């Protein structure tokens, strides 16, 4: 059985674990670096990216996460997407720098501007409810990056190799199609390695 971890330093961990389990994989909360070793893939959940980054540094997660990502699939939602971006608008440095894209934080405004919208996601399907909470969006992407979804001309989901990211929260709905899509990526990556 595939084993997928959810980085559990802070944020919506339980919901991702439920969604992954519904997709028929073993899901586990990851609080320590050692726990990465046994995983086939990793989800970085929504939460506060500044708070998560501080804990990533504090517990020496930065290099192990980069190392993990060289081999195995990673899926970031909202704050997780910010952690994966190579460039963050208005900031001199980024975090894990996995996906060749520039993101803008809190790009749709403050909480009163948070919203739900129907999305079309390439390879996943239509009528997908995206829940955007103080969400970022992707300003621009490099040539290697595949754009999976846009909302009002803004990029809100993308894929590069074995990396997947979404500006919205797939874990807050009962629609697990995007998690299923990631599980398939993990499956494929495991088969290639084997």
């Amino acid at each position, binding site marked *: 059985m595939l084993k997928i971890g959810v980085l559990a330093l802070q944020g919506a961990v339980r919901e991702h674990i439920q969604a992954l389990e519904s997709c028929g994989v073993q899901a586990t909360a990851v609080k320590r670096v050692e726990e990465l070793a046994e995983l086939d893939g990793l989800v970085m959940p929504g939460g506060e990216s500044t708070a998560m980054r501080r804990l990533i540094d504090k517990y020496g997660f930065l290099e192990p996460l980069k190392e993990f990502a060289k081999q195995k699939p990673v899926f970031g939602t909202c704050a997780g997407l910010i952690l994966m971006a190579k460039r963050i608008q208005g900031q001199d440095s980024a975090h894990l720098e996995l996906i060749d894209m520039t993101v803008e934080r809190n790009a749709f405004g*403050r909480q009163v501007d948070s919203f*739900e919208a129907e999305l079309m996601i390439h390879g996943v399907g239509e009528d997908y409810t995206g829940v955007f909470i*103080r969400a970022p969006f992707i300003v621009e992407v490099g040539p290697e990056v595949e754009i999976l979804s846009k909302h009002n001309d803004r990029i809100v989901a993308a894929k590069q190799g074995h990396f997947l990211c979404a500006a919205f929260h797939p874990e807050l709905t009962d629609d697990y199609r995007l998690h299923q899509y990631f599980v398939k990526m993990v499956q494929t990556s495991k088969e290639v390695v084997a």
Partner: protein
Amino acid sequence: MLKTGTERVKRGMAEMQKGGVIMDVVNAEQARIAEAAGAVAVMALERVPSDIRAAGGVARMADPTITEEVLNAVSIPVMAKARIGHIVEARVLEAMGVDYIDESEVLTPADEVFHLLKSDYTVPFVCGARDLGEAARRIGEGASMLRTKGEPGTGNIVEAVRHMRMIQGQIRKVVAMSEDELMTEAKNLGAPFEVLLQIKKAGKLPVVNFAAGGVATPADAALMMQLGADGVFVGSGVFKSENPEKFARAIVEATTHYQDYKLIAELSKGLGSAMKGIDISTLNPADRMQERGW
């Protein structure tokens, strides 16, 4: 179609705060210290609860200058307090773009009978609760997040523990009950039946429940997490301590790793003295903030 202010968007915002610490701040500088220490949000106030207690008189919504200063200083969410039942304070905070409103017993209530109809607002609300009846009434009015009331500004965790244990115990009871017993339980608790039914079916509250009121040390924060809190509010604790930066970081780490006792021992070393604290039994009944709310 784009929909703002939906239940999912409002409750979801609180879900993103889980496992984190929300800190009371009174100016931009404190807000920046809190953000750098890893707080998931800050609560902008004119005075922290222990100072409100000391000052006496009527405590109101903070001067909008302070709230605005904090909103501009940090990129994490900013919360602010409105008086219980004060429709206009709440609307003013919403218009200012505050991310979450605390309809709070720490301020002097504006209405001694009714709370705000929180489902009417685009901005989400957090409310305090001491038991499941109170929690369910606030959810019924549209609160998107709950917290224990504790006894704010005392640096004494005993009341927050009482409230968290009470709510968790009552949830377990509701979950174990048969459905035909639920209406009478709703009557006894003073809770809306529909909310109890939801809790019974889900096995948990439909919204996030944080600990608040009296958290004064990293061990206090870890204790509340262990009792089932989704996260922690620290009011007077941080900036009334000797070394706020160090203290703030320690509380954040103890909340993340609340079962790592060796780490909590390390974190608790050399923090200097925590706030002095008040024994609840020495409080005049009229000074007990937790009694406010209906």
